[in-house]
């Protein structure tokens, strides 16, 4: 079953923060986050394995709550380059990195 992402879309001014959530009804092995710009390939941001870890990548970080099967992506001090559609991809145990992607969150950063 497809993970649910929220919000569906968000508009930010440069420098503002945002949180994107991803929720699954199934027990997850890992959560992968990607950003995709129009007409381009999805670009890997980070992967979180079960264990409730939190990872960071410059001003983008994420957490994974294994008990709730939820992951959140945190964007701080957003830049124009952050604009795009963000997808979470969930991996179940024993499925060899096969990902089920959410419907995406469209993020637009304006001046």
């Amino acid at each position, binding site marked *: 079953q497809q993970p649910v992402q929220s919000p569906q879309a968000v508009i930010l001014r440069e420098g503002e923060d945002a949180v994107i959530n991803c929720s699954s009804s199934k027990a997850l092995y890992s959560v*992968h986050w990607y950003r995709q710009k129009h007409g381009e*390939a*999805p670009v890997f941001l980070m992967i979180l394995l079960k264990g409730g870890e939190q990872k960071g990548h410059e001003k983008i970080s994420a957490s994974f709550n294994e008990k709730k099967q939820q992951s959140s992506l945190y964007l701080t001090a957003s830049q124009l380059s952050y604009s795009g559609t963000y997808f979470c*991809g969930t991996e179940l145990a024993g499925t060899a*990195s*096969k*990902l089920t992607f959410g*419907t*995406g969150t469209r993020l637009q950063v304006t001046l």
Partner: protein
Amino acid sequence: GAGVSQSPRYKVAKRGQDVALRCDPISGHVSLFWYQQALGQGPEFLTYFQNEAQLDKSGLPSDRFFAERPEGSVSTLKIQRTQQEDSAVYLCASSRGTGQAFFGQGTRLTVV
């Protein structure tokens, strides 16, 4: 290669025509995935290879879809007797086995 390469980038097919989409994964990557992405949606899993073995084809929508990776590197996704609902972007991704997957830019297929 430096990244995952897909060809052609764009393909227009007449309904009923057969098409073949090619994916060149990153050298040395054992895992290869095909996804289908409809406009405004997230990618949907089609099939997965580990080297030359097709280990999961549960996402292929019908028996008109066929994928192969005969030598464990380049992969081809073939769609026979294309229909309008096959119109989508077809994405290929590769990885070392687990963890991060690298995506190609995709092939946009339009069936008219």
